């Protein structure tokens, strides 16, 4: 036990002290902060919307809709440099005006044009063509403005005072969504989905990166022949256990650092934004229970051991980096396969697919947390998932230990699958 502890300690300390660990651990929160602050900062700078002042309004409505639109657009945003140009045309000349403007837009004289006609006045449709067509916020703003102006015009036609009509149509409405579970309200749905996705992605990355780190570690010991000395002092199984736990500890440390940094940033988001002079909408963090935390820890531990043991076995089988790449591919496919289901599970966390993939031992560690964070998973399913995962984990460790024991001291050519199977049977 002391010897296994010595291995754990070496694996942990050597890795945690390495440059790359420090850089990666710091990089996570920096990336998170960037993702949080930069969009807010950018939207403040650009007004959040592509500049529409270069847009020409082609008015064929015969009711002055163009001027109203230009006024509304010019006053609606602080970022509009000028009132858009309005060209009033007869309904019959619209096609010609459009072809002229199309050429202008191509030559960058204008950025786009908006056609309003009788159909617009009837509340049916308007047409925009131009460079901002792919900018969702710009199109959104155009649509809202056109709708408001048309509504105001129609209200006036119905005999309502123009001032009142204008005020009635100025509705800067925003839809905020919140998630409700059996336990009650649980924070905003968007934040929650984002959180689940981040969590799954974090688990996925940790398993993939640290699994491969273990594989390389085993290869290093084999290539440098350090393994010869070590296994003369302690059983290969104890060495394997030490490596998996040591590297697992490193992965856990990194995740914990990231989660802590994320929590701090989310909690103090408002003061941080205020200090930087950015507007911040209040954000409700998902409410997470102790049970959720413990389950997450258990899932991560079992999942990590499952994959790490197998990666270590692969590392012990091969002699060169190239062989390792090849031999590790099936294992990586399993992890990646699990990651492919993050989004489908997120969209329908209670569906049949989600149920299945959160029971399979190789995808459960990544996908069960997604479900746990988004919906109330029945305890039967949680327990089934844990039992299957724990059993698979034990089996994986048993097989890996047998491959490892033989492979570690076997030099020369890469073993065939048949040979590896024999190691497992007779080791």
């Amino acid at each position, binding site marked *: 036990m002391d*010897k296994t502890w010595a*291995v754990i300690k070496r694996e942990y300390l050597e890795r945690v002290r390495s440059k790359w660990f420090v850089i990666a651990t710091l990089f996570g929160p920096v990336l998170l902060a960037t993702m949080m602050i930069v969009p807010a900062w950018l939207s403040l700078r650009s007004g959040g919307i592509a500049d529409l002042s270069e847009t020409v309004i082609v008015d064929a409505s015969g009711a002055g809709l163009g001027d109203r639109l230009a006024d509304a657009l010019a006053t609606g945003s602080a970022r509009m440099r000028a009132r858009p140009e309005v060209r009033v045309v007869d309904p019959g000349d619209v096609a010609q005006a459009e072809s002229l403007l199309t050429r202008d837009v191509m030559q960058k004289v204008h950025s786009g044009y908006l056609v309003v006609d009788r159909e617009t006045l009837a509340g049916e449709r308007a047409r925009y063509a131009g460079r901002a067509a792919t900018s969702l916020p710009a199109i959104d703003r155009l649509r809202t403005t056109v709708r408001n102006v048309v509504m105001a015009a129609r209200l006036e036609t119905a005999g309502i005072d123009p001032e009142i009509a204008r005020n009635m149509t100025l509705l800067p409405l925003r839809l905020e969504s919140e998630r409700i579970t059996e336990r009650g309200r649980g924070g905003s749905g968007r934040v929650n989905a984002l959180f689940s996705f981040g969590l799954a992605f974090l688990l996925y990355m940790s398993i993939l990166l640290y699994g491969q780190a273990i594989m390389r570690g085993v290869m290093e010991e084999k290539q*440098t022949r*350090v393994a010869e000395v070590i*296994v003369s002092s302690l059983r290969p199984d104890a060495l394997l256990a030490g490596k998996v736990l040591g590297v697992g500890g490193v992965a856990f440390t990194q995740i914990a650092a990231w989660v802590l940094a994320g929590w701090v940033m989310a909690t103090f988001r408002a003061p941080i934004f205020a200090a930087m002079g950015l507007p911040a909408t209040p954000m409700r963090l998902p409410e997470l229970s102790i049970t959720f935390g413990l389950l997450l820890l258990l899932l991560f531990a079992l999942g990590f051991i499952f994959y790490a043991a197998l990666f270590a076995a692969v590392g012990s089988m091969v002699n060169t980096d190239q062989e390792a790449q090849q031999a590790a591919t099936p294992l990586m496919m399993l992890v990646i396969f699990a990651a492919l289901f993050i989004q489908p599970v997120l969209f329908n966390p209670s569906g049949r697919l989600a149920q299945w993939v959160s029971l399979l031992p190789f995808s459960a560690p990544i996908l069960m947390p997604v479900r746990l964070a988004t919906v109330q998973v029945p305890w039967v399913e949680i327990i089934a998932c844990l039992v299957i995962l724990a059993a698979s984990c034990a089996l994986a460790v048993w097989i890996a230990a047998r491959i490892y024991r033989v492979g570690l*001291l076997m030099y020369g050519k890469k073993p065939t699958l048949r040979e590896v199977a024999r190691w497992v049977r007779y080791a």
Partner: protein
Amino acid sequence: MRSRAIFYAHAVPGETIPNALEINGVRKSFAGHVAVRDLSLVVPRGAVYGLLGPNGAGKTTTIRMILNVIVPDAGVITVLGHPSTDTQVNNRVGYLPEERGLYRKMKVRSVLRFLGALKGVNRRAADRRIDEWLDRLGLRTPDKDWGDAKVDELSRGMQQKVQFIGTMLHDPELVILDEPFSGLDPVNAQAMKDTVVDLRRRGHTVLFSTHLMDQAERMCDNVCIIAAGAKVLDGEMGSVKASHGSRTVALAVDGNAGDIRSVLRDPRLVARADDHTRFYEIELSDGADPQELLRRVLDSGVRVNRFELVQPSLHQIFLERVGARGVEEGMSGHG
């Protein structure tokens, strides 16, 4: 490696085990070929024991079984009075593998602490011993402490010294060296030899494998020759040589005048001759008279510097006993 080395007093209360190692009827096969077959040998306490054999004879496999790295298919191995499977006995054995290596990115001192910890040496004791050994082997001088350097900053020779320190940190009673002289330059080979002699003087038991017969002949109290996985002979060096009789003549001549070769080709006189151009080790035929050989040699016209009835060299015994069946194809890797 300098010869002056440090050792710690052994506290083995009440232990009066005559033999450091006993191997009894051990057998191991890998995927179709037998690496070690029914091997039995005894290493007396305090001896320098040579495990000799050509490459692929099963030396490394035997050593790995002694260290409990691989498990024999059959047979019993007793190390320092305990079954080799007893994990406690591990801490009293030191092992220097043939293929040497260390964690390249780690600092020397950290590697040694780790190797010490694997043998149950606590941090304080390890640090003290590491410093002592670094001093002794010239890896720590007032100008430079290589203990703080990373392993891959060290020269190959220095890395070998570090690995040797790792073998000795827990002051093992039984030291097992697999081909300790392979890859050493003459200076380090000499130092390694001195170290082995020193270990013996301090009461340690040393088992080493080699395919260099001369080295073994000069150093070993006991030898065991194995070939193709089976024991050819074993025993105390003196008795091994005595049992091969005095049918050997050492002959040294001056220059290359005369026709000595036709004399040596006479099967009535000479069973085998090992020609070193000016020195010959000659095994007499059954019933041949050494006097007759001397007369014939003088008649051939060469000047004789030395003509002596000697015990055969280990090399001769090896050639005689192992001969052509020395190396089996495809066995390397389990030396």
